[in-house]
């Protein structure tokens, strides 16, 4: 039967189910199909910390939201237009986010009395009035899958497991997605289990065919490819981009990359990714703990590698003393903090920006460390390269503040020309005529020489004890300590002359209000700014990549506007720094819900400030 095709400019779909239902995989496949089709997109995986929470319960709900469009988009979307709920728990946990009139696909097979009771539904919401106001598609997805796989030599359980592929097939039909990628993926994934592979492919195709033939869906949707700059694209998550950025830093510096890491959510995928790239000379060391991980990275840096450690906030807390050692010994080190909600164990799988002050100040003594923050998943690549550049050039640890949203979220990435990436000069010390002085500084950068073991004539000793300026001998002299403290600070402050000035987006030049963020909030803030501008109002936007040192023109930017709004997923950490440094009374907007900001809420915040002018 021929169906009506309706054109849309954008859609937000949320797949939600039990942790064991394969929702992340389903979302990921739909994303890849969408990327291949050429839509712009942004994703938000959201899953519990438990690997398999009790089946069918609210804590076990896992979801994946995908926003895709025929134009450039910035966020995974505030609220879904389409919710796929694979069980009552998924429905209950997500229905509040679906606006009235939204499409709701529910798997009725899972709406048993027992499953309903588990989440406190006294009656079946599919059958009573609960879902009035939504466009409900009540479909027995599990039993349709089992029927479609009747001819396969599979247990009922294995057949039921393919229901996510049935749902993916249906959605792929509904939104005109190309299917080759998913078919090839299933062939790869289940190469060792041909029967399971064929069953998953059959379930996927059955879902597609069901869409074509059923009367439950009278309309098929089409979202045209987005206009993108010419080039080669791929879809990429923040963690993968960070790993690639580190490999690139190794290639562009000629230094072997040495990763010391201890598994921690949501940073482990960087360790997994880097461990696959040994052919680049990358060494990965899964240490016994966070401290050993950073210790090994520092030891490798002492030996002339690009030492890297990857972790999340709790790991940074454990590494603090060692990062201080890298400050004192002035060795290059890249420290990646994929922030998650804290304090303590907090919400391991949820995002937050509350490690900024820890990165800035979380060490004993005066221990300045440059801090760099990526703004989007693909920007993680550039941020990692920039961190490595600063670390090597200035002989200093550098902290990269990514977050859980950037880490697992994805977006299309126009691949850079690798030959055009910055070159990083290690500039190892060689013996000269003068007596070697391990703490004699480069007059421009204030960096000390990097003299690695094996270099004849440069034998020297470094360590955490204060060193005499120049000679590097142990020194307990008060005047020397004062000097060294100031030199270490001046070295980091001087990096401000070596980074791009802060760019301000103020197209009309008439804005009186500036909104300034840092890190992973870039997408939501930019989308909010667009909304406000669409109403004919003026707002300026600036986003910080460098948190330490700040760009040299930051004060000037702040003072150019009447009001400055600083939204953060913390209680106002950047705001504290800006006030302390520049005596500018910025306006904070702070929410810590484990999720990114929504464009709509930030647009409201901007509007309120404009209105109060």
């Amino acid at each position: 039967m021929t169906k009506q095709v309706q054109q849309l400019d954008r859609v937000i779909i949320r797949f939600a189910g039990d942790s064991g239902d394969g929702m992340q995989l389903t979302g990921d496949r739909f994303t890849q199909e969408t990327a291949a089709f050429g839509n712009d997109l942004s994703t938000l995986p959201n899953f519990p910390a438990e690997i398999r929470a009790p089946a069918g319960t609210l804590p076990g709900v896992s979801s994946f939201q995908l926003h895709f469009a025929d134009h450039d988009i910035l966020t995974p979307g505030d609220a879904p237009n389409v919710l796929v709920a694979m069980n009552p728990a998924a429905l209950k946990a997500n229905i509040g986010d679906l606006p009235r009139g939204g499409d709701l696909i529910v798997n009725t097979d899972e709406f048993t009395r027992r499953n309903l009771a588990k989440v406190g539904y006294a009656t079946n919401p599919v059958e009573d009035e609960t879902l009035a106001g939504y466009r409900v598609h009540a479909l027995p997805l599990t039993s349709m899958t089992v029927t479609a796989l009747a001819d396969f030599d599979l247990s009922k359980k294995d057949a039921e497991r393919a229901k996510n592929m049935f749902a993916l097939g249906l959605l792929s039909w509904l939104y005109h997605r190309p299917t080759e990628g998913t078919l090839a993926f299933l062939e790869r994934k289940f190469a060792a289990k041909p029967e399971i592979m064929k069953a998953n492919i059959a379930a996927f195709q059955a879902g597609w065919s069901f869409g074509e033939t059923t009367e439950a869906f009278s309309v098929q949707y089409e979202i045209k490819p987005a206009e993108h700059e010419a080039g080669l694209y791929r879809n990429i998550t923040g963690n993968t981009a960070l790993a690639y950025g580190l490999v690139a830093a190794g290639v562009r510096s000629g230094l072997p990359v040495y990763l010391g890491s201890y598994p921690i959510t949501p940073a482990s995928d960087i360790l997994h990714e880097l461990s696959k790239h040994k052919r680049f000379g990358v060494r990965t060391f899964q240490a016994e703990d966070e401290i050993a991980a950073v210790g090994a990275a520092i030891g490798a840096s002492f030996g002339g590698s690009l030492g890297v450690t990857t972790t999340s906030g709790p790991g940074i807390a454990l590494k603090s003393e060692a990062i201080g050692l890298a400050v004192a010994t002035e060795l290059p080190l890249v420290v990646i903090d994929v922030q998650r909600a804290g304090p303590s164990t907090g919400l391991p799988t949820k995002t937050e920006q509350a490690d900024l002050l820890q990165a800035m100040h979380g060490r004993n003594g005066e221990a300045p460390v440059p801090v760099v923050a990526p703004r989007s998943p693909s920007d993680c690549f550039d941020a990692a390269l920039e961190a490595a550049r600063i670390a090597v050039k200035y002989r200093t640890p550098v902290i990269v503040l990514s977050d859980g949203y950037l880490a697992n979220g994805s977006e299309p990435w126009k691949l850079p020309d690798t030959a055009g990436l910055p070159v990083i000069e290690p500039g190892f010390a060689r013996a000269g005529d003068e007596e070697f002085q391990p703490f004699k500084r480069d007059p421009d950068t204030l960096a000390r020489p990097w003299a690695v073991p094996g270099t004849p004539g440069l034998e020297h000793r470094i360590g955490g004890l204060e060193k005499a300026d120049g000679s590097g001998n142990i020194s307990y002299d008060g005047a020397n300590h004062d000097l060294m403290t100031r030199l270490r600070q001046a070295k980091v402050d001087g990096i401000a002359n070596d980074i791009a000035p802060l760019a301000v987006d103020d197209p009309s030049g008439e804005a009186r209000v500036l909104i300034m963020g840092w890190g992973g909030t870039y997408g939501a803030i930019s989308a909010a700014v667009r909304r406000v501008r669409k109403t004919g109002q003026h707002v300026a936007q600036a986003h910080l990549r460098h948190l330490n040192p700040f760009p040299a023109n930051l004060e000037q930017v702040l003072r150019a506007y009447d009001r400055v709004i600083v939204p953060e997923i913390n209680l106002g950490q950047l705001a504290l720094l800006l006030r302390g440094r520049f005596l500018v009374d910025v306006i904070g907007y702070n929410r810590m819900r484990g999720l990114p900001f929504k464009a709509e809420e930030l647009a409201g915040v901007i509007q309120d400030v404009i209105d109060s002018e």
Partner: protein
Amino acid sequence: MNGHANGHANGRSALSLVPKTDAEQTLKDFKTDQEVRWCPGCGDYAILAAVQSFLPELGLKRENITFVSGIGCSSRFPYYMNTYGFHSIHGRAPAIATGLATSRPDLSVWVVTGDGDALSIGGNHLIHALRRNVNLKILLFNNRIYGLTKGQYSPTSETGKITKSTPMGSLDAPFNPISLAVGAEGTFVARTIDSDRKHLQSVLRAAAEHRGTALVEIYQNCNIFNDGAFDPLKDAAVRDDITIRLEHGRPIVFGREGEKAVVRGAGGGLEVVPTASVDASRIVVHDAANPDPSAAFALSRLDSPAFEHTPIGIFRDVDRPSYDELMRAQVEEAAERQGPGDLAALIAGGDTWRID
């Protein structure tokens, strides 16, 4: 007998990749211009002199030797060695040295640590370095006290020790570092004494050549806070009666006249009996290369707080690939199998699309 205790039958020494020098080296080459600041009379002086006078024997380029230490009196050691050196933070030297050794096969990497640094705050790193068998030589100066913090009990202090922090006596049961190292899958575990330079250097020699982690416990006197801790082993009047000098391939007998012997006890461990009371065939022959660590462990249990008998020497010396060799092999295998890395191909991955 399995063979290569001290022998390196396979020819793979820890030092085969470390560049050698033809230049004549002496003790002086390894001294720095830094004033040594241990307390007068400290056992550390003797160890420093022994190390400085032993290193020329190895004939390694000085710039390819690195000493890494943690925190404590012993950890000042690198400042006095004219090699590369890294005085790090408390307990973490094995971790830092692991990063160095696994990235630089051309270096001879030594860790200098103490009983507090290695067994308290750094206990975790020590056991993991041992089980991985990283190419490190760990010198554990054991004086059974905290010196740099001025005299608190340490994890090797005897139970009941009266110190500043334990005025009524310490409650802790001490670690036996040899038992710990053997239990942590150590492949080379030895004990020696600061005052016995000849023995100390013989152990250092074997450690330097060992493939993987070598743990050398050095009984070291702190004459300020725990003076005389090892006196019975140093006192010419009694030391030969109580010191069991382990020698690979030799029956374990000791005493001035060899009048005491080590035999297997009924409980599965070892015990000391009069040599004359047993048939010679019952006397345990020391096999440092025994793959079964329980042999070395049983020897380590002959210690007692009262120094009735104390084994010194190489308890265990077995051959196992070192961690850095294995790590290097994976990197080489990856490059061989997949070809050298191509950055543009890597970042493109599998699923790309082109927009014109």
